[in-house]
């Protein structure tokens, strides 16, 4: 351990990394923590809105032949609920956690591309507004979160509802690609010295893998929604069977993205679980290698099983059999992860604080979703249950059980790091029981409803179908879960002022983020830590080894090698800038314009080019000596 920074050095460092005060600082910041906080607050608001939509729909379905919603309103509600939860909540919130945590876990002062992170948030916000502002003025997309043509084609969906949905996808997917590239580059090139591939924390692995999956899968959905817009705007015929197009092409491309998306959401959640289990078991995670390899296995399989969303399309049987086997195979890596987590707890001496409770709730709930997924993977069985409430139950068990419950646990776990205060345990436990209990009460009956013949996306049903009682139970359970969600948010709100002071490491965590004060200063680490194990804070008990030499008078980060993380060079990290916001605005104009005219792609490129030129304008003075000087 070297000597701490002198007061002068500490001041210089703080000044170098400080944002401008006030609104200007708000608009120009490239601080990964501020950007992530924005993402998370936006997500919480959207979760509330989409949750209210869900409750509204549950009330409509609670009794047979209810008339409180028109079919149009119901269709708009489930479209908005699904699109929001999948494109604007689940994926972005996992990216937000990566943007916030990855630099902290890597002992770094910034992400690899700080301005790109700012750009990705502004563009994501554009996507949010793209969907919700039209909703406020009554032009809500009404064709589900998938918008299959020909229903979404020019012949059956006049007006701009379908375009709004398609372009919202483009917004959020560009934002997600920007975030993923950023995270992957940071993990590969900005690890602290000593953090070889074998010493990367599971959470960081999960985010790097999810980022790579995003990069490989999201272009497919952007392509397919662009083809849809082209069909609608300039009369291409990609999906028009009469002109030689094929509506099934849309489904293939959509699910090529759509299935990996589920694991893009789930893998970071598995990362949360691994970190929480390790800390609260008071032992290093059992089967680190197995867990990481399982994640890689899931990522690889994810690209080979999209057809299981299309078993009822009538594709050749041999294909169905292949995708049945591939889909079921996912149970092996997922099952191994579950084993490793339980084994860690079993052999450790666990402390049952709320973050760990969420993990236990996750195991009990998610495994049901995984097993119903095994059922749905069988082509013949899926042809009975697909597009019924069984599937509604299945994917809510996977997404809420598998991703949201760990996310809530992660929120409790890292909340003290972000705010400096602990959340209330009592309110936390109340929220836990309401959410986990309400969710299971609300969604388990849906399995039965599906088997009893209730299709998805119906705004009502007649009394004679016999689906009334279970639907009422489902509504009741959902309402309890929503109440639990409100308690959770209230807890976060209250604890921000009144929670117990946390200090840097309230849980005794093993990874680097617990080495900095809570909340972390803008530059995160005074000195770059040097890592000698998977659990540096547990193995270097006395004091963390550090590396000195990064400048204090300007923003600098260390770039290291991909495999061994040996230091390579110091890299200047960009200062705050308004350019990401302007670029995002220019992209927004281009995207919105291209709903109405293809020429928007031409004239819209002009402000975008201007904004990008401003963004990338060289800031370094020309060298007057050395090799670069020769080129003058």
């Amino acid at each position, binding site marked *: 351990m070297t000597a701490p920074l002198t007061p002068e050095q500490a001041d210089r460092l703080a000044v170098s990394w400080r944002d401008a005060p006030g609104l200007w600082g708000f608009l120009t910041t490239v601080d990964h923590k501020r950007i992530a906080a924005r993402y998370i607050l936006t997500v919480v608001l959207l979760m509330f809105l989409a949750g209210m939509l869900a409750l509204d729909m549950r009330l409509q379905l609670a009794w047979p032949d209810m008339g409180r919603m028109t*079919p149009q309103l119901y269709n708009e509600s489930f479209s908005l609920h699904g699109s929001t939860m999948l494109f604007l909540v689940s994926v972005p919130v996992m990216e937000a956690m990566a943007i916030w945590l990855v630099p902290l876990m890597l002992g770094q002062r910034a992400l690899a591309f700080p301005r790109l992170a700012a750009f990705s948030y502004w563009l994501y916000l554009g996507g949010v507004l793209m969907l919700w502002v039209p909703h406020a003025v009554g032009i809500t997309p009404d064709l589900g979160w998938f918008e299959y043509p*020909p229903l979404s084609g020019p012949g059956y969906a006049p007006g701009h509802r379908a375009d709004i949905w398609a372009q919202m996808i483009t917004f959020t997917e560009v934002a997600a690609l920007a975030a993923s590239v950023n995270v992957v580059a940071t993990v590969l090139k900005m690890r602290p010295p000593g953090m070889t591939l074998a010493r990367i924390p599971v959470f960081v692995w999960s985010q790097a893998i999810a980022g790579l999956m995003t990069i490989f899968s999201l272009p497919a959905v952007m392509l397919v929604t662009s083809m849809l817009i082209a069909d609608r705007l300039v009369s291409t015929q990609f999906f028009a069977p009469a002109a030689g197009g094929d509506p099934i092409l849309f489904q293939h491309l959509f699910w090529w993205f759509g299935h990996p998306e589920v694991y893009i959401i789930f893998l970071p959640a598995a990362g949360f679980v691994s970190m929480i289990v390790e800390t609260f078991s008071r032992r290093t995670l059992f089967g680190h290698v197995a867990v990481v390899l399982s994640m890689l296995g899931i990522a690889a399989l994810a690209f080979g099983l999209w057809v299981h969303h299309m078993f009822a399309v009538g594709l050749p049987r041999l294909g169905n059999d292949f995708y049945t086997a591939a889909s079921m195979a996912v149970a092996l890596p997922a099952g191994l992860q579950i084993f490793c987590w339980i084994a860690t707890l079993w052999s450790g001496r666990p402390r049952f604080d709320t973050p760990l409770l969420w993990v236990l709730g996750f195991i009990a709930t998610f495994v049901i979703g995984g097993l119903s997924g095994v059922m749905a993977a069988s082509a*013949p069985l899926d042809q009975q249950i697909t597009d019924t409430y069984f599937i509604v139950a299945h994917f809510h068990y996977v997404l809420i059980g598998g991703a949201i419950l760990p996310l809530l646990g992660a929120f409790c776990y890292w909340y003290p790091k972000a705010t400096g205060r602990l959340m209330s345990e009592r309110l936390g436990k109340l929220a836990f029981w309401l959410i986990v209990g309400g969710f299971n009460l609300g969604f388990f009956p849906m399995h039965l409803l599906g088997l009893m013949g209730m299709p998805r996306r119906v705004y009502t049903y007649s009394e004679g179908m016999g689906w009334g009682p279970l639907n009422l139970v489902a509504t009741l359970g959902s309402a309890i879960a929503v109440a639990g969600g409100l308690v959770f948010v209230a807890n976060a709100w209250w604890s921000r002022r009144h929670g117990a002071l946390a200090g840097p490491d309230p849980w005794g965590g093993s990874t680097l983020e617990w080495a900095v004060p809570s909340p972390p200063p803008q530059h995160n680490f005074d000195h770059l830590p040097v890592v000698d194990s998977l659990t540096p804070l547990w193995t270097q008990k006395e004091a963390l080894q550090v590396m000195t030499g990064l400048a204090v008078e300007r923003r600098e980060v260390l770039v290291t090698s991909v495999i061994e993380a040996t230091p390579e060079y110091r890299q200047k990290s960009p200062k705050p800038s308004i350019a990401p916001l302007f670029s995002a605005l220019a992209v927004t104009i281009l995207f919105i314009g291209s709903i109405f005219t293809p020429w928007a792609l031409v004239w819209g490129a002009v402000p975008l080019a201007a904004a990008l030129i401003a963004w990338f304008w060289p800031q370094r003075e020309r060298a007057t000596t050395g090799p670069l000087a020769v080129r003058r």
Partner: protein
Amino acid sequence: MSGLQSALEPAGEQAAGIHGLFWLMMLVCGAMYLLVLGGVAWTLWRAFRRRRPASEPTIDPPDIGLNRGMLGWAGLIVVGLTVLITASFLVERNIAAARARDALEVRVTGHQWWWRIEYRDPRTGGWIETANELHLPLGRTTRVALGSADVIHSFWVPNIAQKLDVIPGRINLLDLTPTRPGWFRGQCAEFCGVQHAHMAFDVKVDAPEDFERWLAGQAKAAAIPADPVAARGQQVVTGGQCAMCHTIRGTPSTGRAGPDLTHFGSRRSVAAGTLTMSRGAVQGWIAQPQALKPGTMMPPVALSGPDADAASRYLMELQ
């Protein structure tokens, strides 16, 4: 009516095979879930028996037993999956085997939001058209050729067989082999627009000879009404707005946009499973379709009181 649209009460060869597969899955998956819960319970019991959580972390304990346990667990998962994948293949093969059989030919076309149904006439080789009510002979395989007139739908009679999508530009074949007579219900299972919820159809499984009799009846043109009120009704229906979209064979009504009404009165429900068949329902449907099924393609038809009465009586007599 409960149980008429349920995968849990199979009444067909295909549905029965899948139903068996479902319970095998429940058995295997249920056992796995209990093992996981058992592991969690054991963990909790151990933790609470010891009571004292450790403050000092343990780093990289040897974990020899746990490594063996993980191998065993992986083996168990592989065995379970192998059983389920094999069972799934076998069930699928059985379902596909019906394709080799000689089958009754039926064409079903999905429309927003109703079903056009056509039977091959055993006498003439032509097609006998009806709508929203499918009759099937017991114990014989019926091969349904699924086509769409507009968007994607999905044809599903859960008691008898699995579902299959109805896709514009394609013809999908589905085999149905009912094993129990009676009434069942089918419903569109792929979101197809604003009235997706009201795109159902009734299914009647009959003894083969009853089915033959029914089909022969359907092949006939509509009867000429004897009753003067019904005769007035025929004038109203076949000479007015209705004829633009509906066919009533044997009358000047030859529209093709809506369901064939030749034997309308013999059906069990109105508007693709929306209303139970009755004179009141028919009259209400003609006057206010948008109130009963908002968004339906059926326009309201303004008729005077006596005309509405006559029209509904005529339609009910189309047996």
